[in-house]
């Protein structure tokens, strides 16, 4: 896949992709990954580390945005993998009326993931990876309706909070517009899952909050907060947001 013809030409292909990814000799050994996102002008990958750095030391708009898109992309990969796992082995106590929800959710996340991958082109953190990052779902109970709903709600609420906290950091208007189109669908997902779990909790006050002068707005989390909550899924890789912008 190339981004030479990408409409996202605001992210020029020629700029250094330094530090999108400084992964990971040890991870390659432990997880069977060979991840590299660096062209010949880039800093060589950091070896003997299993840290995946999202973002870049560059402050150009293109590099900042690519770092943030990689952050969203990683979360989408996580969600898509999660729903695929669920759809592959639906809990036996999931009523037939609720099964279609999960194939829809899986489809939406796949579409989001592929859209972001396309937007990133060869700037995707795993563009040169032999295989995608595996996710560790061993902390979840995926054999029961209750377990699946709890996990799905956690991921979707986290996704909504991630957009709420990080969309403001994206500098290219077309990319803000593109990601915003997905962010409200994420909120729809979250609302449905919450209602399935606890009827009437679609806009509970743990996720719809007052913040300063603002009332009834989505809870927002920084990339660091989001990744911290999701860190168990990335093991043995440690995802770092240190190179993402904070303002």
């Amino acid at each position, binding site marked *: 896949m190339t981004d030479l013809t990408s*409409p996202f030409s605001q992210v020029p292909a020629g700029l250094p992709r330094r530090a999108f990814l400084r992964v990971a000799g040890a991870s390659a050994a432990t997880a069977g990954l060979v991840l590299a996102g660096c062209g010949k002008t880039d800093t060589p990958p950091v070896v003997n580390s299993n840290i995946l750095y999202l973002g870049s030391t560059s402050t150009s708009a293109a590099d900042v945005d690519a770092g943030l898109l990689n952050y969203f992309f990683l979360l989408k990969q996580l969600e898509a993998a999660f729903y695929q796992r669920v759809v592959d082995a639906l809990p036996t106590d999931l009523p037939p009326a609720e099964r279609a929800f999960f194939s829809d959710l899986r489809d939406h996340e796949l579409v989001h993931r592929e859209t972001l991958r396309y937007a990133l082109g060869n700037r995707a953190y795993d563009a040169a990876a032999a295989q995608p990052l595996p996710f560790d779902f061993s902390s979840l109970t995926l054999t029961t309706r209750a377990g699946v709903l709890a996990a799905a709600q956690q991921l979707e609420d986290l996704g909504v909070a991630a957009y709420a906290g990080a969309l403001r950091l994206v500098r290219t208007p077309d990319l803000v517009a593109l990601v915003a189109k997905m962010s409200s669908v994420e909120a729809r997902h979250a*609302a449905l899952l919450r209602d399935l779990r606890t009827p009437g909790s*679609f806009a509970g006050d743990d996720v719809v909050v007052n913040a300063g002068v603002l009332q*009834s707005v989505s809870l927002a989390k920084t990339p660091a907060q989001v990744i911290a909550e999701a860190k168990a899924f990335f093991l043995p890789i440690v995802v770092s947001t240190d190179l993402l912008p904070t303002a």
Partner: protein
Amino acid sequence: MDLFKIFSEIEKIDGEVYERFDTRRRVFKHLTGLGKTITAATMPALLSTMFNKAYGQTSGLSPEIKNTLNLALQLEYLEFHFYDTALNTPDLIPASDRPAVTIIRDDELGHINAIKGLLSTDAIPDPTRLAFDYTAGGRLAPFSSSAEFYGTAQGFVDTGMRAYKGGATKLMPNKDILTAALNIHSVEARHSAHVRLMRRVLAGSTNGGDIAGGPGNANPKSWISLTERDGPRPSVTAPVYGPGNTTDFPGEDNVQQGGKNVQTTATYPTIPGVTLTDAMKAAAASEAFDEPLDDGTVKSIARNFRSPLGERLGLFA
């Protein structure tokens, strides 16, 4: 202290200084109403108050941001009074749904307060319930049954969601306001998902919703699927799901994202026992994205709901 000299100096850089004070006569009323002698000691504090009233309370936002926020504010007034009227209409909302509708109504009030806080004195004041005609000139009867109420509600929440999204990039010069709008807009999306769930329950749905909401859009999914067969009440809701005024604002059935057809880009793995048809893929590709709507189209939808008073007040003009 020579007050007139101060004003004269200000006039050199702000020709409208006298007008600012003149249109804020309450400031002077407040001053004279103190009922005590203005002493040299109290004068600085009083002057400070006066100047704050004259200069300190406008939002200082650009016209484009103000217009975008004021359109959003008018839509929030429209929504708030809609839910508030429904909650005050006996036997309209099933008892089991009243808590949810109350949450939605209260969130809309929260959004009103939030936007008013951002706009300060630039905020359009609440035009009151009397400014709105929720029958859209006799085409709808939203307070006649819960089905009619929820159908109209779905049109409102989805319009609001698309309107915020359409205005988002205009707010980018002010990151805090961009964040506020986007984070209000995702709450609207949560509301929409719930209204759609209530509609499914009402319809006795057993499948989680049909593509495009099925016949009469009576069995909608929690997300916008294609153009929702023109929505719950097509004579009014068709433009809610249709395209906007320019090619930047395609309809909700759009599958071109960032110049790419996501229906064909995305990989749909084979699922045992399930055959994915092209129609299903098109639906999923459209559902995965909520589309923005331009302010012109949003206003034309909203103008359906102006009463003569609302028209006189220039709502959604």
